[in-house]
């Protein structure tokens, strides 16, 4: 949820906290006006932070709770008045988000679910509130449980323990830095916010294979694949397009890069595997719709968009795409898709598992100016440590990239190649920066003397962001095993 709808997650999280807090207030405060004022303050906070629909949801639910616990009195009227003021608020404060049917539904339904927790919290809070009011607490399912709580201190302790345990588990999961960083990468890539993907990648201690695919794509879009690929030392797989060999979870992450690369059929393959494995996730459905548009199957694309249309928060986008398809069946769904169409591979190769190098080479064969294929070709050459192929690949890259300077990692690879092969490479009119040369000399010297663990650590500290260090440790890298397909 946090990856797909962070705003919603914030609203729900806030709603849960507030509902628990108000549950406690309801249990403690005896005076109706005090409860009403509390509710107004809380509603105001929710309205500003989480939007009008959550505010309305909170007021509605707290009114119901008030009514069920204390009867239909002034406090309920006060809250309903607040509910009536929301449209006015929306009118004069245009910065507040417009409520949609779905978001209102969620804004109401989730607090209703939370409402069931209130008796537990109230009982866990111990005293407070009137016994008469507690008699009125007849919320289904938990009413009997509530009766037990009222009459047993053990039950109250148990309730406290339960709240603490559940809260602790929730906190643990929500504060898991690793998961959060990987989830953010997923989310921001979906939003095409590539710089933010890179930010999130830096925060993760260790990237798994799907995260690495996302990282590579973000690096490419930021023009940093040749500059910063090896600075992300938290990579574990260092690999492009692993197919299903590193687990089915990786399929979803490969859809977008394969699509952009021009390998439409392999993108379709990964999308269908992901759809089966991950279910009908909105991003997968959208990818399948886009793939079918590219494959000149607009009716099939509409099937996926229609499924998407029925999903919360995706309805508007799906309707818009459907409308565009309706107007012009051959029209591409978005601007990005035009690039995918240009790069689309048109030659047929039959394969079972195609190595990344072949996937990239075929894309370049179809479109020699395929920018992504060019950068991925170079990066793939470096990641595989295939220095023998470097001159050929570099020549291809350089002829298509007229006028551009050599990215840092490519410079590092060239220097290493020249150092190992004792032969100069044709740089096609470009030159290596002096700083890189000087650093390479330092590296060569350090490698020669890095015999003990302290020297090794020093080498890592100074050069771990370089291709040289990657190459040096390539043989000793043992990637942890992934989930097998």
């Amino acid at each position, binding site marked *: 949820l946090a990856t797909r709808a962070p705003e919603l997650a914030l609203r729900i999280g806030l709603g849960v906290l507030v509902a628990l807090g108000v549950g406690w207030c309801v249990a403690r405060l005896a005076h109706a006006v005090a409860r009403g004022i509390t509710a107004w303050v809380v509603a105001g906070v929710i309205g500003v932070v989480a939007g009008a629909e959550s505010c309305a949801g909170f007021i509605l639910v707290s009114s119901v709770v008030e009514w069920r616990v204390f009867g239909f009195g002034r406090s309920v009227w006060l809250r309903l008045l607040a509910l009536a003021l929301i449209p006015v608020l929306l009118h004069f404060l245009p910065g507040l988000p417009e409520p949609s049917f779905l978001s209102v539904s969620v804004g109401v339904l989730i607090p209703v679910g939370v409402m069931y927790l209130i008796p537990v919290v109230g009982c866990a809070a111990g005293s407070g509130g009137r016994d008469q009011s507690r008699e009125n607490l007849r919320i289904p399912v938990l009413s009997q449980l509530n009766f037990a709580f009222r009459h047993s201190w053990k039950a109250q302790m148990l309730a406290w323990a339960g709240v603490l345990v559940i809260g602790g588990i929730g906190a643990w999961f929500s504060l898991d830095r690793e998961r959060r960083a990987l989830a953010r990468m997923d989310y921001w890539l979906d939003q095409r916010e590539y710089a933010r993907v890179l930010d999130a990648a830096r925060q993760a201690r260790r990237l798994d294979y799907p995260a690495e695919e996302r990282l590579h794509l973000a690096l490419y879009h930021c023009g940093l694949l040749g500059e910063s690929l090896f600075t992300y030392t938290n990579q574990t797989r260092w690999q492009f397009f692993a197919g299903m060999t590193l687990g089915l979870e990786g399929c979803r992450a490969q859809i977008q890069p394969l699509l952009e690369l021009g390998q439409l*059929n392999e993108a379709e393959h990964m999308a269908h595997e992901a*759809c089966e494995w991950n279910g009908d996730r909105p991003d997968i459905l959208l990818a399948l719709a886009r793939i*079918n548009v590219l494959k000149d199957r607009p*009716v099939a694309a*509409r*099937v996926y968009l229609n499924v998407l249309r029925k999903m919360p928060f995706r309805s508007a986008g799906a309707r818009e795409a459907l409308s565009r398809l309706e107007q012009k069946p051959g029209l591409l769904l978005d601007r990005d898709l035009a690039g995918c169409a240009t790069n689309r*591979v048109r030659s047929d*190769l039959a394969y*079972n598992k195609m190595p990344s190098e072949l996937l990239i080479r075929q894309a370049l064969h179809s479109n020699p100016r395929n920018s992504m294929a060019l950068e991925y070709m170079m990066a793939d050459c470096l990641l595989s440590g295939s220095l023998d192929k470097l001159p050929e690949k570099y020549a291809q890259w350089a002829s298509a990239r007229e006028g551009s300077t050599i990215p840092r990692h490519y410079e590092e690879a060239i220097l290493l190649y020249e150092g190992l092969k004792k032969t100069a490479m044709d740089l096609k009119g470009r030159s290596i920066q002096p700083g890189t040369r000087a650093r390479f000399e330092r590296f060569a010297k350090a490698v020669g003397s890095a015999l003990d663990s302290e020297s090794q650590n020093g080498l890592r500290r100074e050069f771990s962001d370089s291709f040289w260090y990657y190459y040096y440790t390539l043989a000793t890298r043992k990637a942890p095993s992934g989930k097998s397909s």
Partner: protein
Amino acid sequence: MNALIHRFPSGVVALVTLTVLAMLACLSAAGASEGAPTGVPAPPKLTPDYAGITFPPNIAPLNFRIEEPGGAYRATFRSTFGAPIVMSQSRPEIQIPLKAWRGLVRANAGQPLYCDISVRDAAGTWRAFATITNQIAREPIDTHLYYRLLKPLYNNYVHVGIYQRDLESFQQTAILENDKIGSSKCLNCHTFLNHQTRQFALHTRGFTNGVQPMLLVQSNTVTRVDKTLGYLSWHPSGRLLAFSANRLSLFFHTDGETRDVFDAKSHIGIYRLDSNVVVTPKVLALTHRNETWPSWAPDGRFLYFSSANPRPLEDHRKVRYDILRVSYDLESDQWGEPEMLISSEKTGLSATESRVSPDGRFLLFCLAKYGNFPIYQTSSDLYVMDLQTRVMRRLDINSDQADSWHGWAMNSRWIVFSTKRLDGLFARPFFSYVDAAGQFHKPFVLPQEDPAFYESFPKTFNAPELACGPVHVTEEQMAEAVLRPGRILTPKVDGPAEAHPATPDPPGYRQAE
């Protein structure tokens, strides 16, 4: 003309007068009252396309959506006998009441069914369209359709199920869903004996112990048969089950249809249920040929099958199957010599999925550019051979997408087949009427309660099979037979070792759609 007028002046005058009067009457009637249809008749666009079709008298209502803009819609269904069904509504989705539909259609078997559609525009004027005329066939279709539902799968399957659909209503129930027998299991090759549901078989796949058991249902008792079998076909006696043993692998293309299937080695075997023995007749397991897609003739005197020379994967586009048949005598257990029916050398195409009509008259099969898996070939079309004249022809009911997985109704008057014609990706079941002259009529898609059903259903209908009646064993019984079987049969292999014994699925193995 002058001569004619001079010769028949009174007749001409009368004709002209009548014509003018008729036109005036039409105009007068059209404008007689508010709300009555007006305008030039033109055929309305319907989704699904249920216009100009022949349909069985026992099928569920053919619900559709009128693809014409308007604020109100009127549809009248009328025939020779009985009161018409009149529907007037603001929505374009026409969902015909089941009871009224049944009454009208069953009372008019063999008669045309007319559908008058009119749409009211924003100005409040009704626009009438040309009457749609469909034909209600005299002959009913088998009451149930069995199929597998799955997404367009590749290597992995999480949700696969085999279902039965009552064709007389919209009710669909599960025969077995794979989550009942453990995740990532595949279900396939549901095959009924003589279109009856008391005896049938289906296969399971994805078990890691090497054996992919078959479920055998006889008299509502489910038995697990621990033997990996491929495509199945019942001998009409119910004593034999022909099967193929294939080494299939799924592979991919970088352009065109993504998926493809290659059969490296195959043969046909016979499972004798009465003795629980598997035999491999030599004539069906030639070392220099790959035999597959077995299909018994309805009288059990011939076994039809596809056969091709083995080739390496690199030459997969050169693999073309012939269709042959071999005679068989059940009493003496004697096989004849193979007889060529469809020669790939002559057609230049690959012939698979032979199915003989229950009356023994027609052989229905697929022809595609190459290979053994027509559903992945957009070039796959349905062909028919008249077994008396041996003349074959391509059917007019084909589309520019894959048409395959066909089957006959018990009375040989209906066929069902899977086709990707609607969108190029999802296979949908279509029916076609076969008249006494052997003409196949315009096909129509399986009706659904919601006319927009196929527009948001991302699953494919695979291997549709018609049968007379529902399956009576429960899903729980089926699942129990897999997981905690009360009865297990492990067939003995008789004679020499099988030419290509069925092996555990290799990586990449799929028997998808």
